[in-house]
């Protein structure tokens, strides 16, 4: 227990010392918010059922943070720890691999949550966004979505040979997904064919679920989203535990 706590604290410090992760998790979503906020404002629009662009974008940007930490931070960190012999070094000690991975999950989850809190705070203060859902529900949906994306990240970490490949694979998956799933800007703006492609992207279900919960929709309206993310989570955990390599 003591080692899990120390490890988590250490990983949190390392995460914040690494400019890449900090920027994309904490700063970049805020920049997106202010960029689109300054272009469109947050006036009610019939396209979004009487809500403003920022109202509709906050849950989407949250999905974007989840995808970034899941596909980039997780994958690169694990691949790097393996490549540079950091895992090898840990393997000479009695520490359990579950502590190593557990600390990663906790830190990434807390950083993702911090990214979301910053967004909510800025949205509230600057654009007076309205939150119509239940906070606990949103937290539950956020947790499910984050964990299933970390699962995908650990799975990718298990198959990429080097940190460099991890970075490339992460980006190749991340950027199209952000733009096509509605995480980067509202999906309503995209043509119908692209919206069809989006149904194959796991991030689409994160966007759907978080948007729904944000606007107070019931869980029963999001059975598909929950099912897809739950399956991704289970498959991710099983596959990554089989693929885990110390070196």
């Amino acid at each position, binding site marked *: 227990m003591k080692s899990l706590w120390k490890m988590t604290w250490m990983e949190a410090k*390392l995460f914040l*010392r690494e400019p890449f992760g900090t920027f994309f998790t904490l700063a970049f979503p805020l920049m997106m918010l202010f960029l689109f906020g300054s272009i469109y404002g947050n006036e009610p629009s019939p396209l979004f059922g009487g809500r403003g662009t920022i109202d509709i974008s906050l849950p989407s940007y949250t999905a974007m943070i989840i995808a970034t930490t899941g596909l980039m931070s997780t994958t690169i960190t694990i691949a790097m720890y393996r490549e540079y*012999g950091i895992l090898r*070094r840990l393997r*000479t*000690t009695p*520490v359990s691999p579950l502590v190593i991975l557990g600390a990663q999950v906790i830190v990434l989850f807390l950083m993702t949550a911090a990214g979301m809190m910053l967004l909510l705070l800025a949205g509230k203060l600057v654009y007076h966004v309205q939150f119509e859902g239940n906070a606990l529900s949103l937290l539950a949906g956020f947790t499910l979505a984050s964990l299933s994306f970390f699962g995908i990240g650990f799975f990718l970490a298990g198959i990429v040979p080097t940190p460099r490949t991890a970075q490339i694979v992460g980006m190749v998956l991340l950027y199209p997904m952000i733009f096509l799933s509605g995480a980067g800007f509202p999906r309503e703006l995209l043509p119908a064919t692209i919206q069809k492609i989006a149904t194959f992207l796991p991030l689409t279900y994160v966007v759907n679920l978080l948007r729904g919960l944000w606007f107070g929709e019931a869980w029963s309206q999001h059975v598909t989203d929950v099912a897809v993310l739950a399956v991704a989570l289970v498959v991710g955990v099983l596959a990554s535990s089989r693929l885990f390599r110390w070196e």
Partner: protein
Amino acid sequence: METIVQVQGLRKTYGATVAVDDISFVVHEGEIFGMVGPNGAGKTTTIECLEGLRKPDAGTVRVLGVDPQQEGQTLRLRAGMQLQQSNLPDRMKVWEALDLYASFYPKPLDWRDLLVQLGLEEKRNTPFGKLSGGQKQRLFIALALLPDPQLVFLDELTTGLDPQARRAIWDLVRDVRARGKTVILTTHFMEEAERLCDRVAILDRGKIVALDTPEALIRALGAEERVVFHIEGNLPPAFASALSEGTRLEVQGERATVYSRNGRQVPLVVEVVGLLSAQGIRYRDLRTEQPNLEDVFLSLTGREMRD
């Protein structure tokens, strides 16, 4: 003397390559046991089988009374390991690494004391990535000593260090033994093995070709003592004929070498210097060369060690 490590018929192959070919040895409590040999001799594979990081294809390995494959956890609690290729995150500070690793053990030593003993106190807040090679190695030794282990593994500890840093590390290893711990190390520096180890196993192509104290290995070789000097011009024939029985002279340009069997009554250097001054021969850079482990390796394998 208690046996700390017992290896019997250890064998490990990677595909068609036989890395370790049926080797056996024991390590006793409180000794510095070295494995020495060129790159690819099988040292690291052997030490990693002892550490439980690699699974032997055949043979039995007992370390601190346990099988490293079966009871790796017991071993990792009681042995400290420094690996040839391992790292810490670049942005982790020295004290943070010690503090983190200390949390893995039930009764770790106080890492603040280790920091002082290993001369890293000034580097306490330095990130790992900013340490020099020698400082990194010292930190790894500190991490290996954290569990207050009975046994310490050091794999290629001084590779890539300058001679001064290497000597400082040797002193540290001697300190570790002085605290009653057993040390198993690998090196491809013959000099390091000779100066540091109580017993040395010489490995070549996966086999142990010799195992004894460095002194005994050199004595068994019956190698020749040498005196080397430089002359200006030619060495007069009178010099060669005046040399005593059992010596041999070799001249290459300005460089002359006199060989002699060990165990003579008058030291060879006394005889050579005496002759040179008696005959009024001008010479410079005279030195004696004792046979060393390098010569042992050469005579056992017919090849030179290469760094």
